[in-house]
């Protein structure tokens, strides 16, 4: 029987989705090792303790609340010190957290403070016996999946966001309060400014979704259907082929391909793009590729996961409408 500690990530006073996923993973691990407790630690500004209820519903037995006015912005050093302090004062089998921007920072620090091995970006915890944990971790840009054994009485694991589905395991969590284990004002790294995304134009390199247009659009003014589809996704950037930027329909900075940007978004929608070698070199590694083209022989269909043969002027507006509806229903 062993307890598991979760660092439950918050932004402001709100819990992040990955915190619940880590809690679910911790619950499973605690249950697998003979029914230990799941403890979740949150660190944030006053009021953050209110997330305890939500954590309890997902399987946390104890919620350790670290509230401090100096924690309005995420403070890695305080979070790591507090997690380590909590572990040192008790007995835990593992520390779990998300493999998110925060988790990437906190995990290794906790591991060093506790001298515990850390596996990052875990997609599954497969077995726990004695001092041994068997976990799955994708490497080589997801081209290889590693099964790793961690041999240590205490381990740090960061779990890949969305890899584990958060599940309800209703209980009422006890709340422990704790003072920050480090002075937030003494941090060596201070956040000066946070810019929320979604307001400015999303860079092609960062965009989770890219909608790109090619010469199949026939004219510069038809590019607006590409922009409208991108707007429907909300988190999409607009790209173009070399032919299109050469023709001046779009700025050169929008070009995707061998001589332009090389991108690999979660979703790539190719509109009126035939798929010349020069273009494929810039987008082949996208996770999911959708192609819309009137020529069913176009090479783009060879790399596309989903293809629609048809007139872009007809298909794209219909898709835009459908995406809007899908987003609204979500």
């Amino acid at each position, binding site marked *: 029987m062993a307890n598991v500690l979760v660092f439950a990530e918050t932004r402001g006073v709100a819990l992040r989705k990955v915190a619940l996923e880590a809690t679910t993973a911790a619950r499973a691990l605690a249950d697998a090792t003979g029914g230990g407790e799941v403890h979740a630690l949150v660190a944030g500004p006053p009021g953050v303790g209110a997330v305890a209820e939500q954590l309890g519903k997902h399987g946390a037995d104890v919620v350790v609340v670290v509230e401090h006015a100096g924690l309005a912005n995420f403070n890695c050093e305080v979070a790591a010190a507090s997690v380590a302090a909590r572990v040192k004062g008790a007995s835990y089998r593992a520390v779990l957290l998300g493999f998110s921007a925060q988790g990437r920072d906190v995990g290794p620090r906790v591991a060093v403070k506790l001298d515990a091995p850390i596996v990052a970006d875990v997609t599954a915890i497969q077995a726990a016996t004695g001092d041994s944990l068997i976990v799955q971790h994708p490497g080589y840009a997801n081209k290889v999946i590693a099964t790793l054994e961690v041999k240590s009485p205490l381990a740090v694991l960061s779990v890949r966001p969305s890899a584990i589905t958060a599940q309800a395991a209703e209980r009422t969590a006890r709340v422990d309060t704790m003072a920050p284990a480090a002075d937030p004002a003494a941090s060596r790294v201070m956040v000066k400014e946070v810019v929320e995304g979604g307001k400015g134009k999303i860079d092609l390199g960062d965009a989770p979704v890219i909608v790109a247009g090619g*010469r199949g659009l026939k004219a510069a003014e038809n590019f607006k259907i590409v922009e409208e589809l991108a707007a429907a996704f909300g988190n999409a950037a607009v790209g173009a082929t070399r032919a299109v930027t050469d023709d001046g329909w779009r700025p050169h900075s929008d070009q995707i391909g*061998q*001589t332009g940007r090389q991108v690999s978004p979660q979703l790539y929608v190719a509109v009126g793009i035939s798929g*010349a*070698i020069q273009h494929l*070199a810039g987008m082949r590694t996208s996770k999911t590729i959708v192609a819309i083209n009137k020529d069913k022989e176009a*090479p783009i269909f*060879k790399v596309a996961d989903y293809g629609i043969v048809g007139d872009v002027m007809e298909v794209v507006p219909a898709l835009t409408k459908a995406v809007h509806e899908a987003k609204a229903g979500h």
Partner: protein
Amino acid sequence: MGTSNLVFAFILTLGAGFFALNVQRLVGYMQIGKSDDRSDHPLVRLKNVLTIGIGQTKIFRDPVAGAMHATIFWGFMVLTAGTVEILIQGVFSKFSYALLLPKLVYQLYAMSQDGFAALVIAAIAFAFYRRLVLHPKRLEGDKLEHTDALIILGMIGGLMVTLLLTNACQYLLDPSAIGPEKFVSRQLAGLIAPLDPAPTRLFTVFWWSHALLILTFLNYLPYSKHLHVATSLINVYLSNTSGPGQKGVMRPMDLEADVDHFGAADVEDLTWKNLLDGYSCTECGRCTAACPANLTGKLLSPRKIVINSRQRLMEKAPVALGDHMEFMHPALVHGEGDDAGATTLTEVLEHRLLDTYITEEELWACTSCRACVQECPVSIDQLDIINEMRRNLVLTESRFPEEIQPAFESLERNGSPWAFNPGDRALWAEGLEINTMAELMERGERPDILFWVGCMGSFDDRAKKIAVAFARILKACNVNFAILGQEEHCHGDPARRMGNEYLYQMLAKDTIGTLDRYEVKTIVTSCPHCFHQMGNEFPQLGGNYEVIHHSTYIERLLQENLVPLQSDHGQRLTVAYHDSCYLGRYNDVYDAPRETLKRSLPVINLVEPPRTKDRGLCCGAGGGRMFMEERVGKRINVERTEELLATGAETIAVACPFCMTMISDGVKAVQSDVPVLDIAEVVAGQLA
């Protein structure tokens, strides 16, 4: 010897001496360049002098200007003999070739002098008309260049006129001295006689004018673009652009050499031959007029490259050599060239050919199509300078358009300029039952030919169809062939053309290692770049193979009736064939692809655009331009596609995967639906 003889002897010595000093100065300047052995193949070189030089074959590529120039040139050749006679007569009044030559020969000589003098005058008149009235675009230079040209034309005209007038006066004074073969002079005498029947004074004036004009002309040359009068034949002899050796082969480079930089950044990094090219350039602009980059509005002008290397030499050499004859320094006039305007020694030393005179932008605009080299009437090698300067940019300074870095990195990591998985190289051949060399080797067999597929044929969806078509033809003809499969990788030619000799040699040597391991003798490839590189440049690195382009290979198969063709000839099709530069201008393969088309499509109507064969316009992809952006001016591929479509062609045929990409894009850009086919696809489509 009279007083005037003595005076003339003195002036002649002075004039000749000053000219000799200038020759010494200019030859000295050339020596700051690197060495380059051009003493090989004297007979080939002599043949070039006789055809390109004396025969003016390249000059006649522009028939109108050609006739004009050839008249003046041949006139000069003939009249130089007369000039020597006149100069000797200046010292020894009694001298005449008549004393040395048989009568008939002398009469012929005398007639040629008069006849050519008249012809030259006519040609000069036309030259003035052309420059002052017609203004051909390619002669666009600066004011100084125009003035220089007019001075020279004036002097030549003056020389001819004074020569004839001198003869005419002499005839009036002593009719026996000027025989009937000097028919023009005699006619002229008839015009002078009414003014002065015994023109002793006029004779003296014209004779001295002529003699002094000769010396003035001689001494003006070193300060004029017309220095080519003295250097062009020498330059043609020493040039390699029409052989000896294979055309268009890049200079070998020793990467282990203990040097502080690679390639050319300044005139000292060029060879003396590059510098002689500068002296030989008359700024006729034929190179620039043929340059696809210049034609479509890019900054590059091959003429400017040559003139600028000369301008920089004039600035740098006196300083580098500690030449103190400053009064002799005024530079050769500059047409399109820049004058960096250095006034202090520090400025001269701060300047260099790269950046001060020739910009990076110009160098990267070159498609290495060789049109400039092909056109040059005096066999200047503009491309050699560009290639050397690109080498410096990449190897020494790591400066290049950022979009070619992925190509370099991918060549290094994936063995092709595109970031494709090397393991997918032979996917195009799946299901076609094509042997790899390794498979045959294992069975103890050896194919007759290796089909070198190339990176385009391996990875580009459009070019894969060409590879399949060619493989189908080989199979239909029962040719015993194999591919390297995953063991093939780029030979590095794109890297070499983009100046990255280091990467090139790495890839080329590795390729040679693979080919030698399989004891490959004969290679057939559908890519002219692979064809040129492996056939013509691999020998520099010790790789010697017979490399055949697929157009030649298919033509041979057709000729030997080995290709099972459909008997139905189908409908009459109008086809325009687009010449690939690396097949045509680099390797003189013009007929094989055309013959292939005619043999496989007996009812074909083969049409030619105005720019065709050795004048063909590049598709825009050569010299690594395939991997660069084309942001300035009109796109070359569109320009070329428009020319091809203007022939009324219903199909465009190509014989190069790079041309295929560019022309296909061009066809799309002008919203045409004319199909673009490789010659192998045309033949494969006719297989029975």
